C-alpha cells in the first residue's frame, strides 16, 4: 500500500508539495519573464518587418563592392548620382552600416556587426561556463568567468555606442535620416536601443552577482542559483541579438 502511494505520487507531479517543473520559483519566474520579453521583442521585429515591407524593396547596389575605397561625402554622392537612397525604397543596410572603427573611407559592410555578434556569443559562453562552475561550487572559477562576461558585455555596449555615434554623425535621427524612409532610422534606434538597454541591465545584474560571488554570499547559501538566473537573462539577450542581427543587417 505504502509503495503504491509513493509510485502514484512520483507519477503525479501536480499533486502539490513540490515543483512540477522541477525548478525553483525564481528560475521559473525568470523563464516566464523571458517569455514575455520574447513577445515584446517579437512585436518590435514584426513591426519592423511590416513597415519595411510596406515600402519598395532596396535598390540593387551594382556600384560599390566590399573593400572599395569611398570618398568622404559618400552618402551625398550616392544620393545625387545613383539615386540609391530615395524615399520610396527601403535602404539596403549594406550601404548604411559599412564603417569600421579606425578605418576610414573603405566600404566594409557587416564586418563591425559580425565582430559585435562574436563578442556577444563569446560572453554567452563565459556565462554558461560560470554557471557550470557554480554547479561544482568553484568560487574562484565562477568569479573569473563572471568577470569575463562583464567585460564582454561592456565591450558590446561600447561597440553599440560607436555604431550609434557614427549613424547619428551621418545625420540619422528619430525623425529622419539621409537614407530614405523616416522609419528606417527610427526603427533602428528603437529596436537596437531596446536591446542595448537589455544588455546594459544584464551587465548591471552581472556586476551585482559578481560582487556577491566575491563576497561569498552564494558560498554561504550553498548554491550558485543566482548565477544561473542571471545567466538565463544574459543568454536571452544574446538570443535577441541573433534576430536583431538577422533583421537589421543581414536582410
Amino acid at each position: 500500500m505504502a509503495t503504491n502511494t509513493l509510485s502514484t505520487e512520483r507519477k503525479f507531479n501536480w499533486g502539490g508539495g513540490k515543483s512540477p517543473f522541477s525548478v525553483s520559483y525564481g528560475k521559473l519566474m525568470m523563464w516566464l519573464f523571458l517569455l514575455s520579453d520574447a513577445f515584446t521583442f517579437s512585436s518590435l521585429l514584426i513591426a519592423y518587418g511590416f513597415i519595411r515591407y510596406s515600402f519598395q524593396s532596396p535598390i540593387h547596389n551594382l556600384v560599390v563592392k566590399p573593400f572599395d575605397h569611398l570618398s568622404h561625402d559618400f552618402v551625398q554622392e550616392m544620393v545625387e548620382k545613383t539615386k540609391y537612397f530615395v524615399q520610396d525604397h527601403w535602404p539596403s543596410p549594406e550601404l548604411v552600416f559599412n564603417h569600421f572603427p579606425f578605418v576610414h573611407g573603405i566600404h566594409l559592410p557587416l564586418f563591425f556587426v559580425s565582430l559585435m555578434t562574436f563578442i556577444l556569443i563569446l560572453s554567452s559562453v563565459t556565462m554558461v561556463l560560470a554557471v557550470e562552475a557554480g554547479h561544482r561550487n568553484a568560487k574562484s572559477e565562477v568569479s573569473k568567468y563572471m568577470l569575463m562576461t562583464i567585460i564582454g558585455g561592456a565591450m558590446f555596449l561600447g561597440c553599440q555606442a560607436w555604431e550609434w555615434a557614427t549613424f547619428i554623425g551621418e545625420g540619422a535621427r528619430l525623425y529622419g535620416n539621409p537614407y530614405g524612409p523616416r522609419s528606417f532610422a527610427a526603427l533602428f534606434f528603437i529596436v537596437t536601443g531596446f536591446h542595448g538597454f537589455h544588455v546594459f541591465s544584464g551587465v548591471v545584474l552581472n556586476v551585482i552577482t559578481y560582487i556577491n560571488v566575491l563576497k561569498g554570499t552564494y558560498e554561504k547559501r550553498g548554491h550558485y542559483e543566482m548565477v544561473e538566473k542571471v545567466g538565463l537573462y544574459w543568454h536571452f539577450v544574446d538570443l535577441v541579438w541573433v534576430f536583431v542581427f538577422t533583421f537589421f543587417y543581414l536582410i
Partner: protein
Amino acid sequence: MEHIEHLEHTETPKDMKSQIWKTFWILLAFTVVDIVIYFILLSNHSMWKNWLFILLGVVKAYFIVGVFMHMKFERKTLMYSIIVPMIFVVFFVTLMIIEGDYTNLLRWFK
C-alpha cells in the same frame, strides 16, 4: 531558500563543459555561414534569401536555448510551457505578412 534542497535535480550531463564548447563552435559556424551567404548574395534582394537568414537564426536560437539556457535538460512540462506560447509569435507573423501584402498593394499599385 531551503526548498531548493528538496528539488530533484534535473539531469545535467557530465560532459557539460565539452558540450558548451561544442555549442560555441556550432554557433560560430552558423554565424560564419550567415556572413558567407550575405556576401555571396549581396546584390540579391529576393524573398527566399530572407527566409534562409531567418531559418539560420532559428537554428542558432535552438542551440542557445537548448544548451546555454539548459532547456534540453529541463522537464518536458517546463519546456512546453515556454516553447508552445511562441506559437502566438508565428500567428502574429502570419497575420502581418497577409496585412503587409495589402498595405504594400494599396500604397504602390493604386
